[in-house]
């Protein structure tokens, strides 16, 4: 089966019910023994310019989907995974809301946890996505990944 780039972007915050649905769907895959999940949550941050209220995400979508696909293929080649899912928000996500959801599943826990960590690192470093930190209607800052 040839795998193709698939949509990873969700408009707005990622809901906890979306995460629950995603977990629930895996109950039919009884060869899975371990799931590892990473969630990025928009954090209140105090900057000299003011307090962050939300982040607005934009992307170069065609390139991001192609890159996400390549990373996914690399990770599948490197680790014995059963499943790997990525979701990233676009548009405005308020503090306390989820903006990134990475979900790996495998027979044994080592592959799932290592793959999940590596996936998150690569997403932060390699996906053409930009976050604008919104302080109020007039003020904003461009987020920098550390």
């Amino acid at each position, binding site marked *: 089966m040839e795998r193709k780039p698939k949509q990873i972007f969700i408009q707005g915050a990622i809901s906890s019910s979306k995460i629950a649905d995603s977990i629930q769907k895996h109950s039919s895959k009884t060869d899975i023994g371990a799931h590892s999940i990473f969630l990025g949550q928009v954090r209140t941050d105090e900057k000299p310019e003011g307090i962050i209220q939300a982040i607005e995400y934009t992307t170069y979508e065609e390139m991001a989907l192609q890159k996400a696909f390549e990373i996914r293929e690399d990770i599948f080649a490197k680790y014995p995974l059963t499943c790997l899912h990525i979701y990233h928000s676009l548009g405005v996500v308020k503090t306390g809301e989820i903006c990134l959801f990475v979900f790996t599943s495998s027979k044994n826990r080592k592959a799932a946890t290592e793959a999940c960590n590596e996936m998150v690192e690569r*997403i932060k470093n390699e996906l053409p996505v*930009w976050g604008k930190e919104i302080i109020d209607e007039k003020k904003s800052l461009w987020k920098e990944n550390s």
Partner: protein
Amino acid sequence: MELKGIKILAFGMIAEKINASEFYLKEVSNTNELLSSLNSLYPQLKEMKFTISVNRRIVNNNEPLNADSEVALLPPFSGG
């Protein structure tokens, strides 16, 4: 290419600085020429960090461009 030139996409703080997310540049046949052209057109980009992609691939060396090239100016990524 004769009419409009090469299409350039701009993202994030680059798009904000030049106040455009898409524009066209004529008479650039490679990415080095593109950079010179950008520097004179948009001097505000000089102190900004960004990479260039051609056809959705990041390029690090001088890369030839043609009418069909999809060029993008990418400030540092900050997803997640």
